[in-house]
């Protein structure tokens, strides 16, 4: 069938189940926007700054577990996508980013709004393409979706010159993808499986470390079975939070720089660490040399390049963690490690997270998140921004259901949370979507309130306002001898008034007594809602592991007796 390349593009998007694109128009994408107009099945969400588009696509992708799509014009449109693409790359988010490019005869001439976006995004995409010949577009788009969503997922960028999008082409019937240099491994090698089984038989203190890859593999059920079978506790990285119910007796929660005490102790004391789809990022390991020193390390990952990159590994196995866990569950006999488990349970009892609230202040952000968890963990998806509120969410909310935390882990991108919530809500309009944010992060995405209002998205924004960049402040407190530099917001707006100007319903919580009632009321209210919590800038995230220290050398909050 003959059609314009831009129309062929829309057809391929549809074939891949895309029902929404987050984008921003411009000169170089006129043909694509023209094609969007002609399409009835794909909704376009007009963001207010291109940076929100990949974040929203990321939120969408994490909800649906399939590629989110964002679209921007050439030049500044494309460069505004960069942070979001890098964010997606670091967290292995499946995404297809489409950019317009100046017409092919103009490429390389420093034309108006020309930028080499494939060059710029080379280090932050799984793969990228510049479409020079219109007849290649259908194949390239199909490859883009294939690469983005298979193996270790990641963002793929396709740069489409304006004249290419406008060219009439034959839309092929057969779009089977065959990329010579891209054949991910899914099935784990049998001999490695046997080695793992042997290691499990020898272990007396095994520990499971789940990583973000578990979410994409959708291996929550297999994980639960595995944990029971080998009778081991489970720690999670930030990106894996919610894959294993934190209310479960085996759950130790997040490990790492701001890990829970029991989780970090377990890592330091286990004799076998089974890593599932985690990349041993520095925020999870603390000082690598001191990480899980007593343990044999098993590394299960779909990306061979992750194995042995950051920590020494004793038994590596490459493949899809869901498939490998199924194999392991079939091969491993029921184990009993009650001694080890009771030791771990003691750590949990000795160091409850309520001990880590930090100094007394009027309205404890940690308590708000604990309450928020109690009110919503059975039904909500929570997105966060980056800062203290993010760590408190990770530590105090107690997630229960798979894939209910959406956060920027690897890149730590402020401004991610709210647009990600927009994407998540677009993916599932019926879901309760909560965005936990801070006054620093929220100010990076304020204009997107208009986007959310426009699409009647009933997101609940929980804003921790302490007029300060207090995670940075905390770093300066400990690392710069309390020299606080550039962290005060002395002229913050009245966030409630500002939100009201956008048509957002607002609540303000200032005292602990009003917390419960107001939070419940706000969560029950219709439409986009802002819940501003006025919290102290003296709060700290506890525990924390100082630089170059091992996880068991974490600093915990000591309560004044």
């Amino acid at each position, binding site marked *: 069938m003959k059609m314009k390349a831009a129309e062929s593009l829309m057809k391929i998007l549809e074939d891949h189940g895309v029902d929404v694109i987050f984008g921003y128009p411009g000169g170089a994408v006129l043909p694509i926007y023209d094609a969007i107009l002609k399409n009835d099945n794909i909704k376009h969400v007009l963001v207010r700054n291109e940076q929100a588009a990949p974040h929203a696509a990321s939120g969408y992708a994490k909800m649906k577990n399939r590629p989110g799509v964002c679209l921007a014009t050439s030049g500044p449109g494309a460069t505004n996508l960069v942070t979001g693409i890098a964010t997606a790359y670091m967290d292995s988010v499946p995404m297809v980013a489409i950019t317009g490019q100046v017409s092919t005869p103009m490429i390389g001439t420093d034309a108006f709004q020309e930028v080499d976006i*494939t*060059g710029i995004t*080379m*280090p932050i995409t*799984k*793969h990228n393409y*510049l479409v020079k010949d219109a007849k290649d577009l259908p194949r390239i788009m199909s490859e883009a979706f294939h*690469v983005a969503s298979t193996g270790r997922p990641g963002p793929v960028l396709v740069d489409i010159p304006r004249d290419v999008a406008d060219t009439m082409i034959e839309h092929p019937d057969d779009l089977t993808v*065959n*990329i*010579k*240099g*891209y054949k991910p491994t899914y099935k784990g090698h049998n001999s490695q499986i046997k080695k793992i089984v042997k290691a499990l038989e020898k272990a007396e203190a095994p520990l499971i470390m789940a990583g973000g890859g578990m979410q994409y593999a959708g291996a929550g059920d297999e994980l639960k079975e595995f944990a029971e079978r080998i009778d081991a506790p489970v720690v999670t990285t930030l990106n894996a939070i919610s894959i294993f119910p934190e209310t479960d007796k085996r759950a130790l929660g997040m490990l790492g720089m701001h890990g829970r005490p029991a989780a970090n102790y377990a890592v330091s004391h286990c004799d076998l660490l089974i890593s599932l789809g985690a990349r041993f990022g520095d925020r999870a390991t603390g000082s690598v040399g001191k990480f899980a020193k007593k343990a044999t390390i098993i590394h299960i990952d779909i*990306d*061979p*390049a992750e*194995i*042995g*990159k950051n920590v020494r590994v004793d038994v590596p196995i490459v493949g899809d963690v869901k498939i490998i866990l199924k194999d392991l569950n079939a091969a491993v006999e029921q184990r009993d490690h009650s001694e080890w488990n009771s030791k771990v349970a003691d750590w949990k009892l000795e160091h409850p997270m309520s001990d880590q609230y930090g100094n007394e202040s009027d309205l404890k952000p940690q308590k708000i998140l604990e309450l928020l968890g109690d009110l919503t963990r059975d039904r909500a998806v929570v997105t966060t921004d980056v800062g203290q509120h993010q760590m408190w969410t990770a530590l105090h909310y107690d997630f229960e259901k798979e894939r209910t935390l959406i956060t920027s882990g690897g890149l730590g991108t402020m401004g991610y949370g709210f647009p990600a919530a927009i994407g998540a809500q677009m993916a599932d309009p019926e879901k309760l979507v909560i965005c936990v944010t801070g006054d620093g992060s929220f100010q990076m995405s304020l204009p997107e309130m208009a986007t959310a209002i426009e699409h009647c998205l009933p997101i609940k924004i929980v804003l921790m306002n302490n007029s300060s960049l207090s995670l940075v402040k905390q770093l300066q407190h400990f690392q710069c001898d309390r020299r606080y530099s550039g962290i005060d917001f002395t002229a913050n707006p009245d966030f409630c008034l500002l939100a009201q100007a956008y048509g957002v319903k607002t609540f303000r919580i200032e005292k602990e007594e009003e917390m419960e009632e107001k939070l419940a009321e706000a969560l029950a209210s219709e439409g986009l809602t802002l819940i501003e919590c006025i919290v102290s800038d003296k709060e700290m995230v506890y525990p924390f592991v100082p630089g170059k220290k091992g996880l068991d050398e974490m600093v915990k909050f000591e309560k004044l007796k």
Partner: protein
Amino acid sequence: MKHTLSVLVENKPGVLTRIAGLFARRGYNISSLAVGETDDPDVSRMTIVVSGDEVVIEQVCKQLNKLVDVIKLTDITDKEFIGREMIFIKVNCPDAKARMEIMQFVDIFRARVVDIGKDTMIIEATGEAAKIDAIEDTLRPFGIRDFVRTGQIAMVRGAKNPKHPKKSN
């Protein structure tokens, strides 16, 4: 230690940038890189000589393999292979005596004189890195005016060459 990697890649624009960028970004050192089309015009072969310890080389290989445009990578360091570099050296030869001497050296190294100017000569030589180094050292006393050296190209002996993957259809 130096490793020789034989890499088949898609013959497309930008592939060299992807590979060079990867080395730069991850702090790996390329000693030399030679690239050219293979008998299949869709595929190029890169011969990359890279230095680093085992851990680094393992990462280099894995990261290269991760690139979608890399079709097949073989570390041939431990295999029996033939490796060759090629050079042009432009040396001073002010008089007949110098010319005679240079030509003698050229004979010994089985190199070739490819150009004679008023007071310079261009020598072409191919060989393993050590031989190329020796030629350079020998000719240096005459005064080297210009020097061009390719990266190494390499091929495994016998039947077990890293072959092109069979193309479907």
